[in-house]
C-alpha cells in the first residue's frame, strides 16, 4: 500500500487517539456496560488499521515488527490462562472466580436489581477482559499488518 495524502494523514492523526481511548474504555467497562475485551480490542485494532492505511504499511512495519506484536499476543494469552489457573490455586477449581465477593480487588458484590455502575465489581472478569483486550489488539493488528506488508512487497504483484 502506498502513502496517502497529507489530509488523510492529518485526520488519521486526530482520530487515532480517540479510537484507542474509546476501545480502552470499552475494555475497561466490559463488566458494566455492553462490550468487553474482544469488542474493545477490535476497536483499538481498527484504529491501528487506520494508521496502516494512512501511512503505508512499510512505514508502520519499520517502526513495529510483527515478532514484537506476536510476543504481546502471547503475553495476553498467558495472562488469561494464568488468571484461570489462579482460580485453581485460590478457589480449588479451574476458572474459579476467586475475587468475586471477597471485598478485595474488584470484589464488591453489587446490590441486586438495577444499580449504578460500580467499577470495583466483577471478580476476575475485569482482569480477564484486560488480558483478552491486549491479546485481541495485538492479534488483529498483526494479522492486518502482515497481510498489508506482504501485498506491498515487490514480488507479490504490486
Amino acid at each position: 500500500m502506498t502513502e496517502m495524502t497529507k489530509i488523510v494523514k492529518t485526520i488519521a492523526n486526530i482520530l487515532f487517539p480517540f479510537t484507542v481511548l474509546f476501545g480502552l474504555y470499552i475494555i475497561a467497562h466490559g463488566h458494566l456496560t455492553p462490550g468487553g475485551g474482544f469488542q474493545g480490542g477490535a476497536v483499538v485494532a481498527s484504529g491501528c488499521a487506520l494508521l496502516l492505511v494512512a501511512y503505508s504499511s512499510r512505514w508502520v512495519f519499520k517502526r513495529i515488527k510483527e515478532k514484537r506484536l506476536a510476543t504481546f499476543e502471547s503475553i495476553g494469552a498467558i495472562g488469561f490462562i494464568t488468571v484461570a489457573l489462579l482460580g485453581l490455586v485460590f478457589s480449588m477449581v479451574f476458572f474459579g472466580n476467586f475475587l468475586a465477593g471477597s471485598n478485595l480487588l474488584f470484589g464488591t458484590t453489587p446490590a441486586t436489581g438495577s444499580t449504578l455502575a460500580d467499577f470495583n465489581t466483577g471478580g476476575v472478569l475485569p482482569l480477564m477482559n484486560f488480558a483478552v483486550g491486549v491479546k485481541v489488539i495485538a492479534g488483529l493488528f498483526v494479522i492486518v499488518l502482515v497481510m498489508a506488508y506482504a501485498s506491498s512487497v515487490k514480488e507479490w504483484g504490486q
Partner: protein
Amino acid sequence: MIEFIPFIAVVVMVFIGLYAVMFRRNLIKIVIGITIIESGINLFLITLGYREGGVAPIYTGLPPGTAYPEQMVLPVPQALTLTSIVIGVAVLALMLSLVMHIYRKYGTLDVRKIRRLKE
C-alpha cells in the same frame, strides 16, 4: 408467518452463501460466500435468544420497574454469537492469506485454472 421472518432471513443468507461457495469459480467469492453463511448462522443464534419486549441482560442503568428474568433477552445465545464471530474472523484471516499465496503462485483466482491436484 410474520413471526418467522427473522428465520427466513437466516435461511436466505445461508442460501446465498452456499450458492456462492458451490457455483462461483473465484476464490475470493468463495471466501465471501463462507462469510455470508457465517453471518446467517450468527443471526440465527441471536434470533433464538430474543424475548418479546425484552431488554439487554445488563443491570447497569436498567429501566426501573423491569421485571427480570421475564423481561430480559437470553444471555447465552449472545455469548455463543460472540464466540462465533471471533471464530469467523480467525477463519477469514487464514483463508485470505492462503488465497494471497495461491494468487502469487498461479497468478489467477479461477478455480478451474488452479486445480492441479488430481481428483
